[in-house]
């Protein structure tokens, strides 16, 4: 096998080695959180977590568990580095972005530790490409301190219906208002744009509603520009969980099924918009 022979000599040096038969299982999920150029990689024995943040108000995480990889070995407790996500994705899709049936790109990702570049070895149809991407000092990622005990309201919806609602959102509205309540309107997405207000209501007994656990009426507003990138994750996912805690922080969790039917998760955390003006009902 071409991949293993190349690295045999120095394999013991590598702090992290991860292999995938289909690189798309990684690239697709990373594309869903690519709203900023840089991402922080955190690898543990559980797998890899990739984090992208924006204006200290939004954080997106993609989790690729160790079980997804055909080979996953890590020599330290945790390995963390920062890398240019756009460059990484360009390399992962170096053989072309579109999916050709029956043809997959194999990937071997190697990292030697602090200060070393991230090495990607990609192979498709007998052609091998080696990419070395410079890594950067990892930055502390925000801790939204979102724990399940603080969760006030939670719904799990099938992504199909939410996808349509999101694509029809009035983009002239600066905020997206989310209302969750044990009483009507149960779950409501509202926008306040140039033409007026628009609301999209999901009843608690809807077929699209898998889980409805709302204990208190909460209305929170989030900047539309921050939530817009989450639509990519929504389009990949089959289910989405929407939770708000006592501070009004929003957690969106997307369940994504990859090409091989394995489950990965993408998570978005968002702070509520500070300026709470008059709320149109």
């Amino acid at each position, binding site marked *: 096998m071409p991949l293993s022979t190349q690295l045999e000599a120095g394999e013991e040096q590598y702090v992290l080695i991860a292999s995938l038969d289909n690189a798309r299982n990684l690239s697709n999920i990373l594309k869903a959180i690519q709203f900023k150029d840089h991402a922080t990689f955190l690898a543990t024995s559980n797998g890899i977590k990739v984090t992208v943040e924006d204006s200290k108000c939004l954080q997106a995480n993609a989790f690729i568990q160790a079980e997804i990889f055909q080979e996953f070995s890590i020599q330290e407790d945790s390995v963390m580095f920062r890398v240019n996500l756009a460059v990484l994705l360009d390399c992962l899709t170096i053989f072309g972005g579109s999916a050709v049936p029956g043809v997959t790109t194999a990937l071997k990702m190697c990292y030697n530790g602090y200060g070393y570049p991230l090495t990607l070895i990609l192979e498709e149809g007998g052609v091998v490409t080696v990419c070395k991407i410079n890594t950067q000092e990892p930055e502390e990622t925000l801790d939204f301190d979102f724990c399940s005990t603080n969760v006030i309201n939670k719904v799990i919806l099938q992504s199909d219906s939410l996808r349509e609602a999101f694509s029809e959102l009035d983009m002239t509205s600066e905020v997206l208002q989310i209302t969750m309540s044990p009483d009507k309107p149960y779950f409501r997405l509202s926008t306040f744009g140039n033409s007026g207000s628009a609301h999209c209501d*999901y009843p608690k007994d809807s077929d699209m509603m898998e889980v409805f656990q709302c204990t208190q009426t909460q209305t929170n507003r989030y900047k539309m520009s921050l939530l817009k990138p989450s639509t990519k994750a929504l389009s990949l996912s089959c289910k989405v969980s929407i939770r708000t805690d006592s501070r009004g922080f929003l957690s969106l969790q997307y369940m994504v099924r990859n090409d091989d039917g394995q489950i990965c998760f993408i998570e978005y955390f968002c702070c509520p918009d500070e300026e709470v003006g008059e709320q149109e009902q």
Partner: protein
Amino acid sequence: MRCVVATSNVKVLGKAVHSLSRIGDELYFEPLSSGLALRCVNSSRSAYGCFLFTPLFFQHYDSGAPPGGLEDSSFRCKMGMKSVQTVFKSLSSLDKTVEKCEIDLNPGGNRLVFQLHCKYGITKTHNLSFQESESLQPVFQKDGYANVLRAQPRLLADTVVHFPPSLEEVNVTVSGERVQFRNHLEDEQDASKMMLTEMSLDADEFESFQVREETGITFCLKELRGLLSFAESSGLPLSMYFDQPGRPVVFGLDDPVLEVNFVLATLSDEETTTHRERNRSRPPQADTSHDDFLSDDMDSYMIAMETSAVGGAEAQPCSTGSDQRRAREPVSAACSSGSKQQRGLESESEEEEEEELPGTPPQKRFRSLFFGSVLSPYSQGANQTLRNQEVLAEASDSDPEEQEEETAKK
């Protein structure tokens, strides 16, 4: 005011909005006792479209007009076209997901509420702001036309597809046996550098081919495309009413529950000739297009202006002073205010020129839609006395040639 539209018709409503969006930026919404009228006019007032949905179209229809009253409608407004389009954004999924669409005026009376009841219990509510407006209604009589063609919309759509999407104007020439579609060239354009497309259709390709006057008209294709796409999806036969150049062409769709009319201005022969002459004698000036309107032969053109705000009474001719102004924007509801004072005409026309500039396409030779006489020639004389248009102030640099013409006709 309340209307409820059932499943399959929601898509028709959405398509109507989208096809009107090809004309202009504002949608005029007027619930009449005869049905819901959605109308639009373009900025240069040379294209108008109207969809009238009769009460049969709706699951429930209440125009809100007091019964037996003089007023045909209790409420009329205009909204931004984009706002209404947002309600019917994903056309393709409308018939699959939407079960019902309700249109109401909210209790506060300041928002028009479009509520879509969708599958799985999902409800989408749009509270749109609107502006109260006067009615938008040109006067045209389809029975007054010499030529009437009727065909399946597929035929016209297939013809139009051969013209580049950027093509603005198309020329349609008809004889007893056939009709020819040709792209229209501006005088300034060099024919040898342009691609010329010409298509001929035989009379037997039409469902009905009635030609009493062999003529050729030129109109703007862009605004028509919106109607063609609607017509194709509805499968209703499309009728075309026209005769001499200068008189607006009417495209209509008829159905028991829906009446569609698109009225487009056509280039008049006279304008084309004078423009060519003028081009030879002096270089075209930026203001030429505006001067044309002012120095138009007012007497032979009726300003067809009516607003239903006037109610059952006949359209009243407004004070002559305001005629000049309405010559520019005949579709506006200037008439209803009645008490339009005659301002210093000089300043008015200047103002109009400025107003007109952004809206009017440069160097366009189109007559404003409502200049064309829409009454048949023989009744023109009788109505002449009603609408005595006096040109009270000539534009200072209007063609002396044209002035002579006017005095001759008066």
